[in-house]
């Protein structure tokens, strides 16, 4: 199973709030390994040539989760930028998650700031390699 981090799980207990969110500091979020759950293309008509990566307009989704109870879930859309050499997977827009990050005082970030921070944290990881491998395996 592919993970975004290889550190041991943080011992911070995870609690599910009444509104369904898991509230965490940024550091706690970063310390919890996330495993790749699923990735897919948005159009079943598109086929990925793993040698040339020559198709255009390829986009899809990717889903990650933690092995904790309750589980952290985060997913986002991506697009394959074929104008670059080699083609690159890029995150599109903000992610979707059941995590709500808090500041150093334990106060919730605003909804948009939460998603932006999660996006920043995700972009620091090696998610692209796992998505590429998953898409290649699934659609080749």
């Amino acid at each position, binding site marked *: 199973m592919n993970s975004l981090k290889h550190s041991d799980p943080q011992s911070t207990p995870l609690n*599910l709030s009444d*509104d*369904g969110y898991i509230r965490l500091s940024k550091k706690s979020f970063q310390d919890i390994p996330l495993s790749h759950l*699923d990735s*897919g293309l948005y159009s079943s008509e598109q086929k990925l040539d793993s040698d040339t990566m020559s198709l255009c307009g390829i986009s899809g989704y990717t*889903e990650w989760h933690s092995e904790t109870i309750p*589980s952290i879930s985060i*997913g986002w859309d991506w697009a394959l930028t074929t104008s670059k050499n080699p083609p690159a997977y890029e995150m599109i827009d903000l992610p979707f998650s*059941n995590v*709500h990050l808090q500041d150093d005082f334990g106060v919730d970030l605003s909804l948009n700031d939460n998603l932006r921070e999660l996006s920043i944290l995700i972009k620091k990881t090696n998610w692209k390699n796992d998505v590429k491998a998953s898409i290649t395996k699934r659609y080749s």
Partner: protein
Amino acid sequence: MEFIAGAYTNIPSNLIADVFNYRYKVFVEQLGWELDTPYGREVDQFDHDDTVYVVARDENEDIVGCSRLLPTTSPYLLEEVFPQLLNGMSPPKSSDIWELSRFTSFDLNEETMSKNGQFSAEVTVELLKETILCAKEHGAKKIISVSPIGVERLLRKAGFKAHRAGPPMIIDGYPLVACWIELSGAF
């Protein structure tokens, strides 16, 4: 485009029959969902007297979208079939929490399926708004939806406050996720 909303007992029986037939064509024939349902009719145990439907029809009165709303005070899909989507939370039982499921705006008159699968751009946002308004009119303050991840994208695009309840399940190769939709401040 017209929208018709009402409970199972208040909607004309021929329209309900059309909805079940439309759902069969979309979910079973087009999307390939493996549902235990009679041929030509997509119906399950959650289609009952308490169920509320929102139906979108075009100028020819062909159905181009539908959704299903259930009060969580009655048995509902998430509680009975997919409780794991709640990530350990007990399924809610409240008159101000309703469940949204079987949401689609697939236009069967289009020659090819769009890349958005069960959603056509034109109808989708309007159907979603009508559905949420309907739920609100029935007393809902929150909605929990059980849907493919496309509905998350749709909710964000339409400007609703929503977040997922937990990790999706992969059903028939596609992620299915539960989303909380906050109705305070909506409309």
